[in-house]
């Protein structure tokens, strides 16, 4: 009776049981709440931590956020092993089961449509980093004059600029290739290295929606690009539940080639109109 309801995901009914030892957010094993043809996966969580004020405070606490995010992910992972879940955003909380049911009722058509679109698909994450190159030994020589110093600085900064452009071209090419082998693609913001602790500069942080049956092929495709371009590091993560593809907009045609076609009339007209 007491406690709030934390909802991880919505899915269609599935036959296989979840792992019995599975613990969710706040240590409460996830329960299945079914309504019509859908199931919400729910934990009971204490009001002391998940009511609005404490939740707001907690979300700014990196340790709490980490623990909660991992617990959420574990449940989603377990679901992904037995079905195609529609994952909800972190910290979606309701007062009680009936609140969850009302939500399911309201969004039913949406959920069913999205579940159909995602059925049998998983998400793969691909990141490209530009490795920090070691300082060129010739450049570490002490400059003989102010002019030398400025020249060295110019060369260094133009070398940096070159490798950044090269990295961007490589990332764009890779993204186009991978998008062509995926049912959907989405670009996340490049990760801040202070937070990720990953060496190098993150120039591509993308997610691809791929049918399970084609995942092995996709992974091999990514693996083949590793080492293709010196100075670039490629990281693959997954398979994830399709977190990045719960919205309609994320389809491959909008991810790669469709630059917005702004009205281009006027560029070369009106020449002699005076």
């Amino acid at each position, binding site marked *: 009776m007491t406690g709030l309801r934390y909802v991880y995901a919505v899915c269609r009914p599935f036959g296989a049981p979840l792992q019995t030892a599975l613990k969710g957010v706040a240590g409460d094993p996830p329960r299945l709440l079914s309504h019509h043809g859908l199931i919400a996966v729910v934990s009971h969580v204490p009001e002391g931590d998940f009511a609005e004020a404490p939740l707001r405070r907690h979300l700014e606490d990196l340790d709490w956020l980490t623990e909660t995010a991992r617990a959420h992910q574990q449940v989603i992972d377990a679901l992904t092993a037995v079905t195609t879940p529609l994952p909800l955003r972190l910290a979606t909380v309701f007062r009680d089961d009936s609140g969850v049911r009302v939500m399911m009722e309201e969004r039913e058509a949406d959920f069913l449509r999205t579940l159909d679109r995602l059925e049998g698909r998983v998400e793969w994450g691909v990141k490209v980093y530009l490795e920090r190159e070691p300082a060129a030994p010739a450049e570490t020589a002490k400059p003989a004059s102010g002019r030398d110093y400025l020249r060295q600085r110019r060369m260094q900064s133009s070398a940096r600029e070159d490798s950044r452009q090269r990295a961007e071209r490589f990332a764009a090419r890779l993204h186009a290739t991978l998008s062509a082998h995926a049912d959907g693609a989405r670009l996340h913001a490049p990760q*801040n290295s202070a937070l990720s602790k990953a060496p190098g500069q993150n120039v591509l942080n993308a997610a691809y929606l791929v049918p399970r049956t084609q995942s092995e092929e996709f992974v091999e495709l990514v693996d083949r690009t590793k080492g293709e371009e010196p100075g670039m590091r490629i990281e693959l993560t997954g398979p994830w539940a399709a977190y*990045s593809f719960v919205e309609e907009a994320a389809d491959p045609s909008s991810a790669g080639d469709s630059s917005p076609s702004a009205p281009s009339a006027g560029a070369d007209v009106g020449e002699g109109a005076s």
Partner: protein
Amino acid sequence: MTVVERREVALVDLLDRLLAGGVVITGDITLRIADVDLVRIDLNALISSVNEQVPSPWGESP
């Protein structure tokens, strides 16, 4: 899927998905975790003790 060695998922990769992905539903309690920019989480969660002026990434509650 044995092709990929399963390492522990990095927190940033997880947050990219849990805070910027997933279905957004206004629950009874849900704070509006708008499309959160990890830079701001970074600032907020990691160095909020240094600088209290950083705007909160969490939207105002309804």
